């Protein structure tokens, strides 16, 4: 295992964690539910690994595992982004003209 690579991954993890803390602390408390469904969709980035496993077709078992993982990730991507947008559309600054 390439030591440089391990360390560059650790650096990425450290920096991304701090960026995450900084950015998330500024998220409006109003939007914490959409925040969670949005991060849900983003963490479905696991789709990357799933696609690689399903696509390289090493053997039947791993292809099936990869396929199920693609399915699970894709479900999260689609439902996560759609429901986040659906919720955000409801937030209005002023009430309907009454």
């Amino acid at each position, binding site marked *: 295992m390439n030591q440089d690579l391990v360390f560059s*991954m650790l650096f*990425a*993890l450290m920096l*991304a964690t701090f960026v*995450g*803390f900084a*950015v*998330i602390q500024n998220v409006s408390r109003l*939007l914490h*539910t*959409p*925040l*969670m*469904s949005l991060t*849900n*969709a*983003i*963490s479905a*980035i*696991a789709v*990357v*690994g*799933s*696609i690689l*496993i399903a*696509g*390289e*077709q*090493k*053997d039947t*078992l791993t292809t099936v*595992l*990869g*396929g199920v*993982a*693609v*399915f*699970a*990730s*894709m*479900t*999260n991507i*689609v*439902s*996560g*982004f*759609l*429901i*986040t*947008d*659906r*919720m*955000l559309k*409801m*937030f*209005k*600054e*002023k*009430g309907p003209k*009454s």
Partner: protein
Amino acid sequence: MSDVVTHLSYLAAATLFIFSLRWLNRPTTARRGVAAGIGGMALAIFGTLLHPEIVTFSWIALAAVAGIAVGVPLSRVPLTAVPQRTAISHAFGGLAAGLVGTAKYIVWLHDGELTSFRTGAIIVEILLGFLTFTGSLMAAGKLQEVIPTRPITYRGQNAVNFVLLGIAVLAGIALIADPTKAYLFPVVIALSLTFGVLLIIPIGGADMPTVISLLNSYAGLSAVAMGFVLENQLLIIAGALDGASGFILSVIMCRAMNRSFTNVLFGAFGQVQVASGSVEQRAMKSASAHDAADYLANATRVVIVPGYGMAVAQAQHRVREVFDTLTKRGIDVKFAIHPVAGRMPGHMNVLLAEADIPYSALLEMDEINPDMPQCDVCVVVGANDVVNPAARSDKGSPIYGMPIIDADKSRVVIAIKRSRNPGFAGIDNELFYAENTIMVFGDAKGVIAEIAAALKEEEQAAAA
């Protein structure tokens, strides 16, 4: 060449993900955040499909279509069911991580490419992935109430859990020392699946906001571990953003209940409450919806404290009618939102936004509490523990120390409640016996509708 394109698209994807979360800081830019997230994900998938190792796309396409077919209906659930959907989504995230880790182990074991580092990363990935999978399914079951929401506890529970986790970790370490001991791999999987179930069983419904946030964090961390397995920085970055988000939300939830992580996970909250059942029958003042409407019509400042009970009764649209009528009369109406109101962080805001209540009227507990003494009428709808003054004064109460909305400081409190029974957490509420409190008993939706009708009637009478 395609390698460079892949790397560039991953880099752009990571940037877009950060912007996506950044734009969520204000409701006005939030939808742009979703667009950025979708763009990032599209780029990530595009870059991945360029990988030369991919020999066939048919399986990927089939699985993706199936995922879309399930994902679209999942995004259309009623907003009261959003916590369950979120929990299921954590479960799927954990499952994907666990399966990819397992597949990677099989491939590398076969090719003789398992190093200790790779095995270690895989172990972390499958531990987190599979425990998030079953844990989140349990949480979803409790939220959907197909599994009892009451904490299920037994003697020595924590010891059993720790022993199980200990064995899983030991098996993992043995695997790292000798990655070819393949028989240990299913042991780790089975133990993490079991641990996920056992971890959630003793946790009660009231703690779900914290648990959901914690599982969110685990799902993110399992993606980070997958990044280390696949040597992919994009996975690490996106996973870390998710992990950080879940962590911050869990801390906010814990603070809002004055509890620690360990207490939520291992404290079995329900136990304490049963012990504190010394309830003497005391008098409550009860009144009709008409009386409540009179109080409201004569107020200048009104604060509404909504709880999950309001959402269960589907009363939010009737609440909006009352809000509209009062606002039209020049009465200042605000909503006081406790951080743990609802079943997940921010849940109440979404439910009220759905009912067309403008977010400028939704105030955080900390924002509204200093103004509570100037409040004329405080209406408590379906909320209970979050307005219980025992949290401030009664050291013996299980919720002592929990920050609450100071509803009792309002001149008049109108509490709408289904019955005289204690609420969800089973704790008696001092507020309901207070001098300045009047109770209106009945279904929240029906009572609020009656109040709205009474207000309109009165308005018409005044106009005539």
